[in-house]
């Protein structure tokens, strides 16, 4: 993130995945549980990404479960992390149980990611409520927007989602098949210059890092006018 030292922490203990998504799975020696329990130093658990400078991954443990760590552990551990890194991103697991408690224990800010679907927005509302009750004002990212479906009225638009959740936006990400390819290969999507989702994520990073007013681009169908008219009249696809 713009030359800052960034650590990404996979908090999904027992269901580790950020390592494969980032293509760093074969470099894991120690994990977050080792680091919290003092079995290794942070520098040993944090894997340096060789493609993106100053990016580090602290992987989850795959053999434990969420209860192996407590919110108090994380508060203590976060103090050490703050000295080492400019930004620490905790990847919170699904659910509102211990994994969530551990992830938000030391959080100063929070991003809630949802998709424009009923089940996702409902869960987001619940999580937003839990974050508020901890004194954290979260921001929202709407992921996997399909502009064609929004235009047709078959998908909630980002305005609908924002209205229902009454929360500030920090980014809109279009549905992008490149993401699947990117996770297949383990090459970060932000490194793929022609990817719409990658561009959206780069912009979110800028907004978080001192440019909060960077305008948010709304994913659109980008269709020439006459093609649009033809489409409305039922010609072509």
């Amino acid at each position, binding site marked *: 993130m713009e030359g800052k030292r960034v650590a990404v922490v996979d908090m999904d203990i027992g269901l580790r995945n950020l390592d494969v998504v980032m293509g760093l799975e074969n470099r894991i020696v120690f994990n977050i549980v080792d680091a919290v329990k003092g079995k290794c130093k942070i520098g040993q658990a944090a894997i340096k990404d060789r493609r993106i400078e100053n990016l580090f991954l602290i992987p989850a443990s795959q053999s434990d479960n969420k209860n192996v760590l407590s919110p108090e552990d994380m508060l203590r551990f976060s103090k050490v992390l703050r000295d080492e890194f400019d930004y620490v991103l905790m990847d919170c697991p699904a659910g509102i149980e211990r994994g969530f408690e551990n992830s938000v224990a030391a959080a100063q800010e929070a991003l809630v990611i949802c998709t424009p*679907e*009923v089940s996702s*927005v*409902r869960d987001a*509302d*619940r999580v937003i*409520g839990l974050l*508020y009750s901890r004194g954290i004002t979260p921001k929202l990212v709407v992921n996997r927007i399909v502009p064609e479906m*929004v235009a*047709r*009225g*078959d*998908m*909630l*638009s980002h305005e*609908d989602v924002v209205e*229902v959740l*009454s929360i500030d936006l920090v980014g809109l990400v279009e549905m992008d098949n490149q993401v699947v390819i990117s996770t297949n290969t383990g090459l970060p999507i932000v490194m793929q210059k022609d990817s719409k989702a990658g561009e959206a994520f780069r912009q979110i990073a800028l907004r978080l890092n001192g440019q909060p007013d960077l305008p948010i681009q709304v994913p659109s169908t980008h269709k020439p006018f006459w093609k649009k008219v033809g489409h*409305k*009249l*039922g010609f072509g696809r």
Partner: protein
Amino acid sequence: MLNGLLKKILGKGGSKQIAKKRLQFALIYDKLEVSDTTLQSLQRDIVEVISRYFVIDQEEIKLEFQRDRDSSALVVNTPILSARRTITPA
């Protein structure tokens, strides 16, 4: 076919309105943890109480929720036709 064409021209239809409505109601119930029947009997009671003092249009009464960041409000909206001269005691 003609129907589909009309739909396309008017841009009507679409399942998102249904999604939004369902979502808004689901969130209200999630927050309050009450069922639809509870809300209906609440509305009935409110109508009864207001009717003791005012003549209201019972068809037009609206019970809705307004959500703010950290609070939700129950808003009852009703047109009052006139005040009752003699207030019937409870």
